């Protein structure tokens, strides 16, 4: 298991082509709290921010530093040993089995033609166990449900054993119970020392599982802090408009955000 890593964005600006839309992040860092959520309305720049943090997109200005060293100066394979990234979708070209997908997560740890070593096998077995897919390990992706497929992708990212894992909407298009199961898996690994940053669409799941939230709006950071500080009328009305209602769970006082007619 890698040591926790720290990722810092400094004075980052990014835009697509000649579009007027721009992402501006003066300063932001990840890696201190176990589970951090990035929330915000559609088009606020959540996925863009995550891809910049992962080094997939290069900012126009500013730097992204992983443990004090600029991402742009490092080779992808070096980055991948410390920093994981799971995109929203992983369209499979061929019909891989679950085990093959998970084993691909070991890419960054192998040599040129190296076959799997005991460490690889252990990491793959552990990732499969964590997501509960041991029984389906030889099943092809095309025979899995949407939730199982997403768990296979997550297992692939877990098998990579990064210190910090970035996930783009890991619960997208999943049923409530599947989405909660995915967050549960991430929370369990986070308790073991992995640092997780996830773009979240569902504010209630974010409130339930995240230790810190970054609220984006129109390409900028509107607020950041503990979920109870962020999910307030004040912040959410500003970002999402006022068609929202915020309740509190009776026992834990965790915020619940609902749409209002």
């Amino acid at each position, binding site marked *: 298991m890698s040591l926790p890593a720290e990722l810092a964005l400094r004075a980052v600006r990014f835009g697509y082509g000649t579009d007027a839309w721009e992402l501006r992040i003066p300063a932001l860092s990840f890696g201190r709290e176990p589970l951090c959520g990035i929330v915000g309305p559609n088009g606020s720049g959540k996925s863009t921010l995550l891809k910049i943090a*992962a*080094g997939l997109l290069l900012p126009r200005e500013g730097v992204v530093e992983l443990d004090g060293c600029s991402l742009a100066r490092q080779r992808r394979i070096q980055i991948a040993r410390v920093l994981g*990234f*799971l995109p929203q979708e*992983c*369209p499979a070209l061929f019909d891989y089995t679950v085990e093959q*997908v998970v084993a691909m997560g070991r*890419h960054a740890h*192998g040599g040129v033609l190296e076959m799997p070593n005991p460490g690889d096998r252990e990491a793959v077995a552990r990732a499969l166990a964590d997501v509960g897919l041991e029984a389906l390990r030889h099943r092809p992706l095309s025979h899995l449900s949407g939730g199982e497929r997403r768990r296979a992708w997550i297992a692939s*990212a877990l098998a990579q054993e990064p210190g910090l894992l970035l996930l783009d909407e890991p619960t997208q298009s999943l049923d409530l119970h599947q989405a909660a199961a995915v967050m549960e898996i991430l929370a369990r690994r986070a308790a073991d020392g992995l640092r997780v940053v996830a773009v979240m669409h569902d504010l209630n799941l974010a409130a339930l599982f995240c230790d810190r939230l970054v609220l984006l709006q129109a390409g900028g950071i509107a607020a950041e802090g503990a979920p109870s500080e962020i999910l307030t009328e004040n912040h959410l009305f500003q970002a999402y408009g006022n068609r929202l209602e915020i309740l509190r769970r009776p026992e834990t006082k965790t915020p619940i955000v609902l749409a209002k007619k």
Partner: protein
Amino acid sequence: MTKNHKIYAFLAVFAVCLAVFPWIGTERLSFREVFSFLIGEWTADGMIFFQIRLPRVLMGLIAGGALAMAGAALQVMFRNPLAEPWTLGIAGGASLGAFLARACPFLWFALGPLNTSQVLALLGAGGALSLVLSLARRPGGAGTQTLLLAGVTIGVISGGAIMVISGFISPWKLAEFHRWLLGGLDAADWRSVGTLIFLAVPGLAILAMQARDYNPLGLGEEMAAGQGVDVARVRRWTAIGAGIASAGVAAVAGPVGFVGLLAPHAVRRIVGPDMRTVLPCSFLFGGALLAACDAAGRWAASPLEVPVGALTAVLGGPLFLWLLARRRQGP
């Protein structure tokens, strides 16, 4: 059978082709005479075996292997199971270059160890590939159908250009005309085997070095980048390696189609999608396939022969159509 056994099975098929096919042809060869040629006695059968048949079979094995391996790599690079040197227009562009070199002797020049047809085949392959790549890079242009339509059209344009040029050249050169439209191994001798190896081996070595990186790419470019693959670098080297290997084949055999499609698909069915296995097995199986098609073409129409490219098109074309029809409306 385990994966390793399957690799040995492919190796065995390849070896059997090399051992058996030189014996097939119009002239029946006596084993004793071929053998006595080996120990220094000049015999006609030995000449045919060692100077005509053996280089031809070797050329089929290497050319087929190179096309199949290039196809397997291009399919991952373009994320398109129908990509291969012929359907992407690379084989066509390279053949036009090689034909120009043959048709216009005044173009003769040599660039280091490369002769005119190799240089022009490389230029043709590079031109076709950059055209297809620039189309694929445009927003919305990366769609499967657009890419293939462009590639096949480049092939048709090259074929048309070859026909136009051949209208202006002396008739005796028309004898080899078929090869440049459909692909054929009829011009095989030890020199062309050398020419082929000179480009195919470096091209394939480049592809083999990317083998590990191809696997994560099967789950999309973003996932691959997250897992530590430098996607832009892999794409660049794949284009270079596949381009060089395809040009090497086209420079001696013309645009042989569909081997790069048939072989990787068959191999993946047998050994699964791991590219570290798929690449070497594609080489072995693609080589065996092309050598077999060539032997069949010589045997069936004896004493004439069917160009090997015609046979591979008849065999591989239907697979292409079937895959095209079966494909979901994907990315």
